[in-house]
């Protein structure tokens, strides 16, 4: 019996582990909280209406980030516009059409590979292919196409997951009524994957907002104020790239922190909407 006394050593082990776990979780959380507070304290005083609505000018020595905001909106809009049909189409093909296991395997492996490639490589290939080979020059359009490739796996995966939750009986029911394959997909399958598409969009918007390395050499870093059509064809930087340029190249930390604060708010909003969407879709599915 003596052997089995609850030893001091055992107690020490348990206490140490408990403490380490606590400390790690605390470190993780406090890092995030510190970053949020720090960015807000440094950034908020610099955010003004002039900054948000103006454009930078060396002549008048003023800065403004309206062009950057607009560029971001354009690029998000255009990227989603192009990536949605591609991603959803690929997901539909994988779950509804593909019978050959090898083809499925190859496509899924390709998607996995894409999601592991660093954004700097996307930027490089985007520059070579879109800007030079397809002669798009350094433009938002080239940037958007690069982002399309980057976000393809995200949309593909979320759509595929939600398609898997569409009950087989729905499809069988529709086929039983004599509907053709395309009609079944259009009326039964596609409506069933709306939640996956929306989740994918939210995630993609987050990724596009945060992206910088892939855009640096494809979309460029001009600050000109443009409408959407001329904008897409000309060089322009998004908020994130603008932050980099202001902080690293120009040393204007005030503007950089103002942009950082705006990006933080957007990140918070995106995370919130992702959480809400998940909650909403989960409830709808269980009803």
């Amino acid at each position, binding site marked *: 019996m003596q*052997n*089995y006394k609850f030893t001091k050593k055992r107690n020490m082990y348990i206490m140490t582990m408990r403490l380490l776990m606590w400390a790690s979780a605390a470190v993780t959380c406090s890092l995030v909280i510190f970053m949020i507070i720090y960015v807000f304290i440094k950034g908020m005083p610099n955010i003004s209406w002039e900054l948000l609505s103006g454009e930078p000018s060396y002549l008048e020595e003023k800065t403004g980030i309206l062009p950057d905001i607009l560029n971001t909106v354009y690029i998000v809009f255009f990227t989603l516009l192009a990536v949605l049909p591609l991603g959803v189409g690929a997901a539909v093909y994988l779950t509804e059409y593909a019978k050959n296991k090898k083809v499925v395997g190859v496509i899924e492996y390709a998607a996995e590979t894409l999601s592991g490639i660093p954004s700097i490589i996307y930027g490089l290939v985007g520059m070579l292919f879109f800007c030079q080979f397809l002669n798009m020059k350094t433009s938002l359009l080239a940037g958007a196409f690069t982002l399309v490739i980057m976000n393809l796996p995200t949309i593909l995966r979320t759509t595929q997951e939600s398609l898997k939750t569409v009950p087989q009986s729905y499809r069988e029911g529709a086929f039983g009524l004599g509907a053709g394959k395309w009609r079944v997909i259009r009326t039964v399958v596609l409506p069933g994957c709306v939640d996956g598409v929306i989740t994918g969009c939210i995630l993609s918007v987050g990724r596009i907002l945060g992206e910088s390395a892939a855009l640096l050499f494809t979309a460029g870093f001009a600050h000109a104020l443009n409408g959407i059509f001329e904008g897409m064809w000309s060089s322009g930087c998004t908020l994130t790239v603008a932050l980099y340029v202001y902080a690293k190249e120009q040393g204007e930390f005030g503007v950089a922190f103002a942009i950082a604060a705006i990006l933080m708010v957007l990140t918070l909003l995106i995370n919130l909407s992702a959480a809400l969407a998940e909650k909403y879709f989960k409830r709808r599915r269980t009803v």
Partner: protein
Amino acid sequence: MSNMITVKNMCLWYGEHQALKNINVSIPEKSITAFIGPSGCGKSTFLKSLNRMNDLIQGVRITGDILYNGKNIFDSSVDVNELRREVGMVFQKPNPFPMSIYDNIAYGPRTHGIKNKAKLDDIVECSLRDAAIWEEVKDRLKKNALGLSGGQQQRLCIARALAVKPAVLLMDEPTSALDPISTSKIEELSMKLKENYTIIMVTHNMQQAVRISDQTAFFLLGELIEYGNTETLFSTPKDKRTEDYITGRFG
């Protein structure tokens, strides 16, 4: 024969639902006691109370006393880990850890502070012999335990429980997931183990209770309806409900 476990006026609630009602029972040492009754009658819940595994489930509340060797197991001076070492448990589904056979057996002793290699080797061999599985696994101690058959896994789990030198073995339907041959091996083993251990076994199989147990307790809807010598209980049940159950009229 002295009583190993004595339960007095024990009640158990899951939240608002009372799962066990006023249980009184004394379990003698070095014998096999079988708990029978239909599903959901509380026999498994009761078994898990004896080594306080129910502590882990949220919302469980227990009143009354459970005395182990004369000492209340809910007393604040009782170390629940030490209690669980002395009152071992074998589960319904064989649940070896995803490690080697050796490490499975050595896990308990190591946890309780035995680091000496020779001593561990000794314990492993002893436990495997006691669980009648040594001959089958002695050449593959370093192989993953999940490679064993279901029946072997269950005997390995018994060996693992024996390795920490318990006094009591709680078995929660240990043969319900096994084929008939494995079942009879476990039954044989139990008969042998009762020479040194107090065994309490929940079973769905009434023939099994008759075959191996010394005492039988019949549970129904959270109540202990009847408890006594197995032969007597099955041949001349005192309670009408016991008679109905053992003659197969319900459950």
